[in-house]
């Protein structure tokens, strides 16, 4: 019960930290918490869904790629309310691979892949992978005011 023994800093901005182990069954509870936290940050329903999806995709990538499918490995998630949005940090102790440095794959629609990262790129305003000596921290920021990136997507679709 590690989290039971050390108080958080009372001066930090409003935040929630989650620690889960790498079971796919833990994705849904985490996503629900993210969506409800996003609601509390003032995001509308569509945005809540998009933010929850990004958290899900980022965590699924940790499970499948950073941990190569190994279960029972730790993942820490920190949700932070910002004046203009939400910041999500995901910490793993996995293979330290930065997916942003991988070459894009060929685009066969019947062999889809890369959808997870596309979601992060299209739906978040900032994403950054920060390699650690023993794993990775992914940070994602979504602002309430749509950025150019999301503006573009919305024009495409509408």
């Amino acid at each position: 019960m590690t989290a039971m023994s050390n108080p958080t800093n009372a001066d930090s901005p409003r935040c929630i930290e989650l620690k889960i182990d790498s079971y796919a069954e833990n994705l849904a509870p985490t996503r629900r918490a993210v969506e409800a936290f996003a609601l509390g940050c003032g995001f509308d329903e569509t945005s809540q869904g998009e933010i929850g999806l990004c958290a899900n995709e980022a965590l699924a990538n940790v499970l499948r790629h950073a941990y190569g499918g190994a279960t029972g490995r730790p993942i820490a998630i920190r949700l932070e309310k910002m004046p203009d949005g939400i910041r999500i940090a995901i910490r793993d102790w996995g293979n330290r691979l930065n997916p942003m440095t991988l070459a894009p794959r060929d685009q066969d629609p019947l062999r889809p892949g890369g959808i997870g990262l596309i979601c992060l790129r299209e739906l978040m305003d900032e994403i950054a992978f920060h390699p650690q000596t023993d794993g990775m921290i992914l940070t994602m920021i979504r602002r309430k005011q749509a950025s150019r990136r999301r503006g573009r997507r919305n024009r495409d679709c509408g």
Partner: protein
Amino acid sequence: MSERTIRTNLISSVRKNGDALVASIIGEVDLGNSPVLRAALMDLIARHAPKKLILNLRHVQYMDSSAIAVLVEAVRKVGKPGQVALTDLQPRVKGLLEIARLDTIFQITGTEQEALEK
């Protein structure tokens, strides 16, 4: 080809309509349960070999990319693009298909009837 039906409450109903198979999916599908959905759908396709597969997603409030991958695999297994129709999409699911740019390999319709008539 197994005779045993893979049971999951992710698929709430299945019916034949001529050469078409209409199945309703229900719930929220992510990496936690998409392998179960995959097994059940592949089993259905193997047993019925439908010319067309119509998946009613009215009661799917959420899907992640692993669920999308299952739907794409269904397209490969049924035959060529357009033979799998997705109907009654929730906005969230529709949004994900658009982001993934996969709205072309499926037939996307408002209702089951439309999918049957096309």
